[in-house]
Each structure stands twice: as C-alpha cells, then as structure tokens.
C-alpha cells in the first residue's frame, strides 16, 4: 500500500464517502443512540472495531469463499466478531453494555458493515481492507459524536454525561454542564430530534462541498450540486 493509497482510503472513509452523512447507511443506530456523546461514540467505536476486524478477517480468505455463498459466509464472520465484541463489553464495560443494550448485537444488521465487505474487503488486500473498515467506522463515529453532542446540549444542557459508565468512576466529574439550570428540550432527545439533527449535518456537509467546489472553479458558480447526500451513484453496493 502506497502512502497515496493510504491517504485515499482514509479520506474516503472519514469524509468523502462518510457512512453517516453521505452513504446514509446504518441510519437505525445513528438515530437511536445519538442522544448523547458518550452513547454515540461508544457504539461508533464498537462498530469501528467490528469493521476493522471483519475487513482484516475477510480479505485473506476472499479467494477461498465461493461466490455463491459469500454473503452467508461474510454475515457469519461479522456475526461472530460482533458477538465477541459483545461478550468483551459485557465482561469489561458492564455499565456501558447495559446502556447500549440491543444496539450491540444489531451491529450485525448494520448494512454498512456488509457493504464495506462486499465493496472493498472482498477485492482488496488485508491491510487496505482493515484500514478501510477503520476509516469508515471512524467517519461514522465522528458523525455520532457531533450529532450526540448537538442533541445532548440542546436536550439536556450537558456534555459527556454518562462517561463514568465507559471509563469508570474516575470520570464522574468530567461531565460538562454547558448550560447550568437547564430544564431540557424534549424534542432533541426524541427521535425527531435525531432526524432534524442529521438533516442539518447532511446539509452542512453538502454546503462545505459546494463551497470547496466554488473555490476551485473560481468565480464560476456551480449550478449543479456535487456529492449530493442521496445520490445513488455514491452507494457502493
């Protein structure tokens, strides 16, 4: 893997093909667990771990899996890895495991994991596949962190609440009360808040892309939006 390839994969995963705001795959966990930064980042990192491991596990065996049964085999491997992560979290991060609950086993059904395996790991060498899984996962984690932060501040007026569940009792005082004596804004915590927040993030990403494009083309304004969030051509599978 050359340095340029390395950079490309990283850029693709974290920004250009961001799973959260460009590919829009795996919306269920994004919308459900992004009610706080800690929940969002925790599930994001768990997904990143699964994606990295599954990329690394599937790339070396891709030559031995017959085409007809590749989907069941891939799903089997992903499910095994997710269950391993679930056992480990249950054993060593019990508080967080209770909070994330059903969404950990649901990583298996997150289409982004299988999508990257199909689109990338089944065609590329081990290192690149693992890196792709990690970059995609980190892109998702970043979206979850920002969305969780927005919803937590607007909904509860705090940041990092529940961090002691992830890092133990030492972190209890890390909770930031951004707005003291805040009575909360229910909408941000409920599912509609997640949709509105994600919509704003997608709009923000598109705006940044447009602005960059405009700069490149100088005074010539760009008439057609590039890199539209829902454009089917961007879906990898």
């Amino acid at each position, binding site marked *: 893997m050359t340095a340029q390839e390395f950079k490309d994969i990283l850029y693709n995963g974290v920004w250009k093909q961001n799973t959260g705001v460009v590919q829009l795959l795996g919306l269920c966990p994004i919308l459900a667990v992004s009610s706080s930064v800690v929940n969002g980042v925790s599930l994001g990192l768990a997904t990143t771990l699964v994606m990295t491991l599954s990329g690394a596990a599937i790339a070396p065996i891709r030559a031995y899996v017959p085409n007809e049964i590749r989907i069941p085999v891939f799903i089997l491997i992903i499910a*095994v890895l997710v*269950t*391993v992560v679930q*056992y480990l979290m249950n054993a060593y991060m019990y508080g967080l495991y209770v909070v994330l609950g059903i969404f950990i086993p649901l990583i298996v059904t997150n289409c982004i994991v299988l999508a990257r395996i199909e689109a990338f790991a089944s065609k590329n060498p081990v290192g690149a596949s693992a890196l792709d899984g990690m970059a995609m996962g980190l892109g998702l984690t970043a979206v979850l962190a920002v969305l969780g932060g927005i919803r937590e501040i607007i909904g509860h007026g705090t940041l990092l609440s529940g961090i002691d569940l992830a890092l133990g009792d030492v972190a209890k005082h890390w909770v930031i009360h951004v707005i003291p004596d805040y009575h909360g804004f229910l909408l941000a915590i409920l599912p509609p808040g997640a949709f509105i927040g994600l919509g704003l993030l997608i709009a923000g990403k598109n705006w940044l892309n447009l602005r960059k494009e405009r700069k490149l083309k100088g005074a010539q304004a760009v008439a057609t939006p590039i890199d539209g969030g829902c454009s089917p051509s961007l879906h990898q599978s």
Partner: protein
Amino acid sequence: MKRIAKSTLQTAINLVFFAVIGTAVLSATYYMTHATIVKSEEAEKLKLITQLVPNSLFDNAIMQDTLTLPPDALLGTDAPTTAYRARLQGEPSAVVFEAVAPDGYSGKIALILAVRANGELAGVRVVTHKETPGLGDYIELAKSPWIKGFDGKSDAAYGEADWHVKKDGGKFDYMAGATITPRAVVKAVHKALLYFDANRDKLFAPAVAAPKGDTP
C-alpha cells in the same frame, strides 16, 4: 449432473468449515468472559440492593440467601422472581423482591422493593420502564427524588385510601401532565406490600433448600 453434485458438496463443506471455525471462536470467547460477566452482573445487583438496604441492616450473604417467588397477581409478575433476604445476627431485617406495574403509560414498569421486617418500605427503585422521556421518567431516581417518597411508608400506617396519588385523594405526589405513570407505580407498590403482609413468614423462612444444598 455429477459435476453439479460435486460443486454443491464442495460449497456445503466450505460453509460448514466456516461455521465450525466461527463456533470455536465464539465458544472460546464465551469461556474466557463468562465468569467476569456473571461477576459484574452480581456486583451490579448487589449495588442496587445495598442502595435500598444499607449495609448496617444486614450481615449475611444477601446474594446467597435467596428465595424463588412463584408468579403472583399481587406482584404483577408472570415468571418466577428471586427474593433476597437481609438478616442481622440471624434475625430477619429486610427482604428485597421484584414487582411489576403492568399499567404504565407505555407498558410495564419493573420495580425492585425492599421491605423491612416491620412492614415499612426501606426503598423502591425502578429497574426498567418505557415511560416518556422528560415527562413520565421522573420515577427514575436519576431524574427526580420522587421515588424516595415511598421510604418508610407501610400498609399499616397508610390506609387503603392513602395509597393513591394526591389527584385521586391519596397521599403521593405526582407531576402535572404525567399522572398515569405514578398512579401505576403507587398501585404496584401498594399491592406488593399487601403481598408482603400476606406472605411475611414465608418470605423470611430460613433457607431450607440452600442453593448449594448443604443444609438438610
């Protein structure tokens, strides 16, 4: 025909091979983490129990001194639950058991109660619920001290009429806009106390069949 049969067999063997490897990895992880998982689950339970029954109230191994309660209408349970008995120098001091409020605003509310030997509530906590966030969730201690209003209450001291929210002529607080939730919790706690009164002797009976079976 032969060729197809051969390739089908090969595919099947391939799939079985991956399934076996996957199962082996899972079993290994399970055996490696199982003990820790059980330990952290017990620790979490003990933390909840000692929140309700202070350490000064018992000196027995509360996690081992258990009793299985059959499903009961007064408890609102439809599966056997476990009661934990607290004893101080051999004398029963409190019992911790589960109850379910079936009629919350959005489904069941699972409660855990601690009742002292004299019938007074040592405390109540909500274990799981699906009430509206920000509206009905003040039954959680993390959100509001409302649930502490049960501390020290008993069926004997409070009459039948008092076991309602204030809106219904009882003695328990509620928050405007969310009465169904506290109504369900108050009703369930009262019924659980009636269960305690009716089954007091059974609840505190010495562990006949200890989990290890070392007492005759």
